[in-house]
């Protein structure tokens, strides 16, 4: 195994355990912030597991948190996905495009990208000067993930990508 392959395996394994943690927090009585924290971490590492096979430097990959949306955009060109899901290229492209806004919401949960706004890890100050705590904040994204076709579809894809990563991306 090359160094890059080791990194790929490591990102994928960590993404899978983050996803498992997300599933457990979804089923139990965990605060929404913890659900979203694990979902954001799983999706970022899933993206990086594919990214690390490309030519981007490890420094760029590890420092950037803006990987998941790029992953979804680029994955829409993946011929193996088209065959696996029996979709035409144009259908797959359109479907993935419809998922980008909610993927972007997940990506923006990373504190580094949240720009001192809602995020699942650290308190923040809103425009009126109130200090808000992730543990008590009603994240609208949770509802969108559970109750919209895009949210449900995106979660389904993340699970499929993690479970069938080698088949679909390698």
């Amino acid at each position, binding site marked *: 195994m090359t160094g890059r392959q080791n990194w790929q395996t490591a990102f994928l394994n960590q993404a899978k355990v983050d996803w498992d943690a997300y599933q457990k927090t979804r089923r139990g009585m965990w605060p929404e912030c913890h659900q979203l924290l694990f979902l954001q971490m799983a999706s970022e590492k899933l993206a990086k597991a594919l990214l690390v096979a*490309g*030519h981007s430097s490890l420094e*760029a990959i590890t420092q950037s948190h803006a990987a998941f949306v790029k992953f979804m955009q680029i994955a829409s*060109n993946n*011929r193996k996905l088209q065959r696996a899901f029996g979709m035409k290229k144009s259908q797959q492209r359109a479907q993935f495009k419809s998922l980008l806004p909610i993927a*972007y919401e997940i990506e923006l949960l990373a504190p580094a990208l949240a720009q001192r706004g809602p995020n699942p890890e650290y308190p923040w100050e809103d425009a009126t000067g109130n200090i808000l705590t992730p543990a008590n904040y009603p994240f609208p994204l949770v509802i969108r993930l559970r109750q919209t076709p895009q949210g449900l579809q995106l979660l389904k894809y993340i699970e499929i990508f993690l479970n069938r990563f080698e088949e679909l991306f390698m």
Partner: protein
Amino acid sequence: MSQNHNILSAAESLIQEHFELEPNLENVIWINSDKTTEIRLLEINSMTFPAGAVLSFYFPPDEEFPYPTIMAEITPEEWQKVLRNEIPLPEGWTLENHKVYSREMATV
């Protein structure tokens, strides 16, 4: 048919397909187009989300498309920063021997 001709034909048909599928695609840069073993594409899309970096993804070859392909998508503003060396290209990528494809060129 030469190896160069084969990869040229494959790259250009892929680029044309991407222009057909993505209306917001402005240009496609075929990076290091003299390489005959893989295709590196940098796509400039006005509607993509900026990442502040050129994040490149690998697609393995398969029976339908026999060349490994490495693709990245950036905004027009990020492309200007690449040209000004404010955003680095991925490792091993240079702007020597690159080809720029516009929608008009690709759909001729």
